[in-house]
Each structure stands twice: as structure tokens, then as C-alpha cells.
């Protein structure tokens, strides 16, 4: 039986409009939710290494001025304020350093007494098995760097032990280790310079 071509065309156009219109309407309705979910996911992955009682706000929603800066061995791309009960408790810094194979994106958390709370790798392309152990959760080296980093350490101390400094290196990854150590040094020094402005500012 021959179907009339106009009926076929009409049905096709009807189906297309329904499918296309429905999908676009659904997308419009869901955009807000998706953006919110992506922000939450980013916050939870970035901030997942930080100790529990450090803050009680959403730090990534409180950016600080002066968070973009070109430092000696690295580049700061953002600074955020973490508060606890309205008082600034820590500053979260995002830093990009030049690693062995490419840029390393680090998250450095410094608390109000200029102690490095955590150093975490957000993105890296280092040698698998050697340099990319900075991104693993089972390497204690990153937390060792955080513990040993002190503001009053002399310039000569910010180097690997084989360069007469105070930091161990990651086995087989001296360039990566130096990059991370220098990024933490830059971040700590910059924090010291901005401390008055960053810690005095209360959460809006």
C-alpha cells in the first residue's frame, strides 16, 4: 500500500521537532544543575587531601585578589580563602611549575601560621612510575615536603639533599622533585608577602 508522501514528511517533521525541541528544553532545564554538579566535583577533587577541621566554608567560592602572579620558579594561577567560623584559617593556592615532561599543576594549602598543610598534584605528565608518583595517593613524599617546608628556611635549604638542601628527592625523579620543592618555596614566600591582606579579610 502506498503511503502518501505528505503524511510521511509530516510525520518525520513532527518527530524531528519533538525530539529536537524536547532535548533542547531538557538541556535548558538541567544546565543549572549540571554547572553546580561540575563545580562541586571540582571542589571535592581539588580539596580532597585537606585535613578535616581546617575549614567550614566553600573555599573555591571565595577567591582572593592577587592570586595571579609570576613567581621565580612557578606561576600562581589562583588563591582562595578557607575560613572556619568566619575567621580565615587557610589559603589555598594553585601553582603551575615546569616539570620534566610538562607543566605540573599543584594545589598548596597554607594555614594561618604559615605552615604548609598539604601539597597535592592536580595535573601532571611526568614519567610513569618515576615522576608521576607525585600524583599517587600512596607516596608519602608529598606530605614530607609539606612538613619540612618552613618559612624561615634559608635559601640554601630549599634544595635536594644531594644539592646540600633539606629535602629528599623522589627516586629517579630529581627534576620533578626540584620543581615541586621550588613551587612550594615560591608559594610560601608569596603567601608571606600577601599575608596581611589575605588573612585579615573576613569571609564575605
Amino acid at each position, binding site marked *: 500500500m502506498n*503511503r502518501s508522501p505528505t*503524511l*510521511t514528511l509530516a*510525520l*518525520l517533521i513532527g*518527530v*524531528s521537532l*519533538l*525530539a*529536537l525541541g*524536547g*532535548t533542547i528544553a*531538557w*538541556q535548558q532545564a*538541567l544546565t543549572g*544543575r*549540571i554547572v553546580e*554538579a*561540575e563545580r*562541586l*566535583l571540582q571542589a571535592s577533587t581539588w580539596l580532597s587531601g585537606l585535613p578535616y577541621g581546617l575549614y567550614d566554608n566553600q573555599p573555591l567560592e571565595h577567591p582572593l585578589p592577587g592570586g595571579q602572579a609570576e613567581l621565580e620558579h612557578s606561576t600562581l594561577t589562583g588563591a582562595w580563602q578557607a575560613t572556619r567560623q568566619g575567621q580565615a584559617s587557610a589559603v589555598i593556592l594553585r601553582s603551575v611549575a615546569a616539570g620534566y615532561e610538562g607543566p605540573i599543576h599543584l594545589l598548596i594549602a597554607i594555614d594561618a601560621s604559615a605552615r604548609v598543610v598539604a601539597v597535592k598534584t592536580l595535573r601532571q605528565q611526568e614519567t610513569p612510575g618515576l615522576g608521576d608518583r607525585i600524583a599517587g595517593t600512596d607516596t608519602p613524599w608529598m606530605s614530607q615536603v609539606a612538613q619540612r617546608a618552613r618559612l624561615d628556611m634559608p635559601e640554601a635549604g630549599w634544595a635536594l639533599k644531594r644539592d646540600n638542601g633539606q629535602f629528599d628527592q623522589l627516586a629517579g625523579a630529581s627534576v620533578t622533585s626540584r620543581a615541586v620543592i621550588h613551587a612550594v618555596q615560591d608559594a610560601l614566600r608569596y603567601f608571606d608577602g600577601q599575608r596581611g591582606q589575605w588573612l585579615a579579610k573576613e569571609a564575605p
Partner: protein
Amino acid sequence: MKEKGLSALCLAPLIGATQSLGLALLIGLLTLTLVSVHRLLMTPLRERLEGFAGELASLILAAGLVSCTVLALKAWALPLSQELGIYPELIAVQCVLFESLLGRQAPWRNALALLLGFAAVLATLGAVRELLATASLDLTFSAGLRGQHLVNLAPGAFLLLALGLALFNRARSRRADHDREGNR
């Protein structure tokens, strides 16, 4: 089961989305619901649209359905949708294949049996891969922390699938032997 019915099942999710039992069950569930809804929506159109127009309509419906599902997954379960990667989108291909191969002749029961069998194969493969990779079974979805065990990667999945097929064929041929023995 007709031979052409079998070709309506795609290989890609079997290899790529079965790193863990939870992931495999999720893909199986999504396939089941999406193909069923697609068939449901195509039923009024099947008699009125023939040939190319019918296939075009099924394609448009499949694309719309899958897009809406992916958006919903992203909105309500973003980490889950990132684990699943591109495999929900591939279900659109399965919808269209089902429609073109099993659309007119096959009744609902056949299609449902085929889909449930597919989900069972997915679940089995997922369970075996998870057991071999981590020696434990749980319903979490994180497949990224397992490291580079062979069964986690595509070649391992192909090997397991081949083993499964070999066992299945052996079981079928053995049944035939018994019949012949009885007739001698």
C-alpha cells in the same frame, strides 16, 4: 535466537564498560531501558513510516533519547557519568540496530530475552574482571584505581570474552553429541 538478532548487540560496551560489576550492571540497565523506550516510541510510527523514513525517524528518536539520558546522568550523577565515559552514547547505535533488525517481525518477548541475555553477559564479564583484578566483589563504580592488570584493559576483556565463547560453544556441541549417542 535469530542470527541477525545477535548482531544487534554491540561489542563496544562489552569490552569497554565492564571493568567492574557495578559499571557493567549500570550499562546493562541503561541499555535495557533505552532500547525498550525506543521500541515503545517507534511502535505507532512503524506502520506509517516505511523504509528510509522509518530508519530516519528511529535514528532521530534514538539520538534524542540518548542525549536526554546523558544530560540527566550528568545533572544527577556527575562522577558516575564520568566513569561511564562515552558508552551511554553508544546505546543509540544499539537502539537503531534493534529497530531495523527486530522491529517488525519479532515480538516483545524475543527482544526482551535478547536484552536480558546481553545484560547477563555484561554482568558476568564485569564480575569476572573485577574478581580477577581485585579479588573482591563490590558494587562500587571506581575502575581507575585498579592499576594495569591485564583484565582491566581491552585485550584482557577480549581474552575473557573469547574464553566465554569457547566454553559456550563446547557446551552446545557436547549436548549435540549426547543426542547422537542416544540414537546409535
